């Protein structure tokens, strides 16, 4: 290929689709007549017809090698080395580079060029793959031409049960454009296999999950968060209980990538919400080898183990966003992961004062897991905007609500003793004289999300009471 380029003389790269190239075609013709000019055309081999010996670069190999970004580009070579280059049409520059005066007298002084075809989105990645310049280290899996890629991926066990986007090299390269991080950086070791999750491996799974490149930093932060020791991802996966990682996103990234914090925030229909949560689960499945009925011993599991990710509705809230409450600076983008499951609705369309609404919330919270359990699991309370308004109008801070809920979740031990209320489940008789709280201190987390209409908040139940022995929520900054 290198031999195709002249050691000495001029090289021009053009395309018919560029008005500046069309305008400069007579000048190229004149230079060609003088000799020492090679013209490569990117789109139409019959262009420019002013140059009889023009060369076909519709495959874009020469353009890629010369790293052309704008057409027309004019380059001078001497002794096999590039010694000068100009973009677009600029008479003075062209005269300087060619050493010929009076070029294109009837043309304007200068006109900018157009984007080159070899750097168009989609084309550049294809060229990098073709010339083996991707730097990607993952094993290549060849799918036969008569084989259905979807079926091949299912057969290899890569899927969570739904179709996947095939992780071609081009798509993975584009995905990696979404982060400034080194593709070979190890984000952590994914249980149960404790296999290294490189940025590249996570990007492959993000492609399969349906992520756009701009979602990747959020997916990376979510992976980093679940791999934090205190989240205990191995246990969250291996438990017979329902839980999986729930991802809550805070900060400006939510709006930049179009996440849903409003109506149906916990439901279907938003690509970023759906794909980021799914990417995290695919990382656990494919890198970590965490699969149901293997190390994942869940009795029932929950539908959120396909994907469970939403944004907090920070706009219009009187409360601190969750990530700020957990120590990050306001305006910083962050994810918080919580080992949770399902959604238990709290329907209260009547309470108009915060005391009544807090009692309503607490009553529902006390039923979590089992009415006979205390201290029980942690809980993530998702407060809808109409319920939040009641607290806001009464001047209740989030801290105030935490305190009230904790107080309202004190339960007489007698109610919790095994056999009490006709339920065998429960604690030892010694509880009878005590008061027990449903939650450990700090066992409730509150976020605000949901549509503007409807007095329907929700509780996402947690695993066993969060502690160093089980799973604690983890917050990580979203890094570019």
């Amino acid at each position, binding site marked *: 290929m290198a031999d195709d380029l002249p050691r000495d003389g001029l090289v021009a790269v053009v395309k018919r689709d560029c008005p500046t190239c069309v305008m400069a075609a007579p000048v190229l013709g004149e230079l060609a007549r003088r000799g020492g000019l090679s013209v490569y055309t990117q789109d139409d081999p019959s262009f420019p017809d002013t140059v009889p010996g023009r060369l076909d670069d519709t495959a874009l190999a020469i353009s890629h090698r010369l790293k052309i970004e704008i057409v027309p580009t004019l380059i001078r070579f001497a002794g096999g080395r590039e010694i000068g280059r100009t973009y677009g049409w600029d008479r003075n520059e062209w005269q300087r580079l060619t050493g010929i005066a009076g070029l294109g007298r009837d043309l304007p002084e200068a006109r900018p060029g157009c984007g080159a075809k070899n750097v168009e989105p989609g084309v550049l990645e294809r060229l990098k793959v073709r010339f083996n310049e991707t730097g990607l280290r*993952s094993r290549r899996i060849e799918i036969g031409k008569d084989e259905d890629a979807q079926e091949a991926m299912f057969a290899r066990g890569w899927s969570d049960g739904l179709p996947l986007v095939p992780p071609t090299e081009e798509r993975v390269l584009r995905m990696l454009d979404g982060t400034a991080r080194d593709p070979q950086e190890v984000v952590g070791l994914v249980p149960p296999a404790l296999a290294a999750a490189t940025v590249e491996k996570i990007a*492959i799974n993000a492609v399969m999950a349906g992520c756009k490149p701009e979602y990747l930093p959020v997916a990376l932060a979510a992976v980093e968060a679940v791999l934090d020791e205190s989240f205990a991802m191995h246990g969250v996966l291996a438990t017979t209980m329902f839980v999986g990682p729930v991802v809550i996103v805070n900060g400006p990234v939510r709006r930049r990538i179009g996440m849903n914090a409003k109506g149906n925030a916990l439901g279907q229909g938003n690509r970023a919400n759906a794909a980021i949560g799914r990417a995290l689960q695919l990382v656990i499945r494919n890198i970590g*080898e965490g699969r149901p009925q293997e190390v994942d011993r869940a009795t029932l599991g929950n539908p959120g183990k396909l994907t469970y990710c939403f944004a907090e509705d920070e706009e219009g809230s009187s409360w601190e966003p969750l990530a700020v409450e957990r120590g990050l600076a306001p305006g910083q983008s962050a994810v918080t992961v919580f080992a949770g499951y399902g959604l238990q609705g709290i329907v209260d369309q009547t309470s108009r004062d915060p005391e009544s609404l807090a009692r309503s919330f607490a009553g529902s919270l006390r039923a979590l897991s089992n009415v006979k359990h205390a201290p029980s699991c942690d809980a993530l309370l998702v407060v809808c905007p109409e319920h939040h308004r009641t607290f806001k109008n009464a001047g209740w801070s989030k801290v105030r609500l935490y305190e009230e809920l904790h107080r309202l979740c004190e339960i007489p031990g007698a109610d919790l003793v095994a056999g009490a209320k006709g339920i065998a489940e429960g604690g030892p008789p010694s509880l009878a004289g005590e008061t027990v709280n449903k939650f450990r201190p700090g066992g409730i987390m509150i976020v605000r999300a949901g549509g503007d209409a409807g007095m329907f908040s929700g509780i996402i139940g947690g695993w066993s009471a969060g502690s160093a022995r089980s799973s604690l929520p983890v917050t990580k900054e979203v890094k570019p």
Partner: protein
Amino acid sequence: MTVLLDPTSERSPTIRPRLPRPESLGGLTVGILDIAKSRGDVFLHRLGERLAERGIAVRHYAKPTNTRPAPLPLRQQIAAEVNVVIEGLSD
């Protein structure tokens, strides 16, 4: 040909290994599939008798023709009812 990047830890070979053969047929149900090759039924019937003499549960199945893959309902039935399958591939 499509080339995909491996999303896994790469601890397993790219080609899926065959399921391991059982150490013994004790306690298993053996399916005997006649693919409709001539005299295959004679051979398989005798094989079935020999297995049954050893106290092994045997179920017999037959493909309508050897020229096409087994119909899906038959494949599903076999997969649901037996642990291993023996078939006679040629005349």
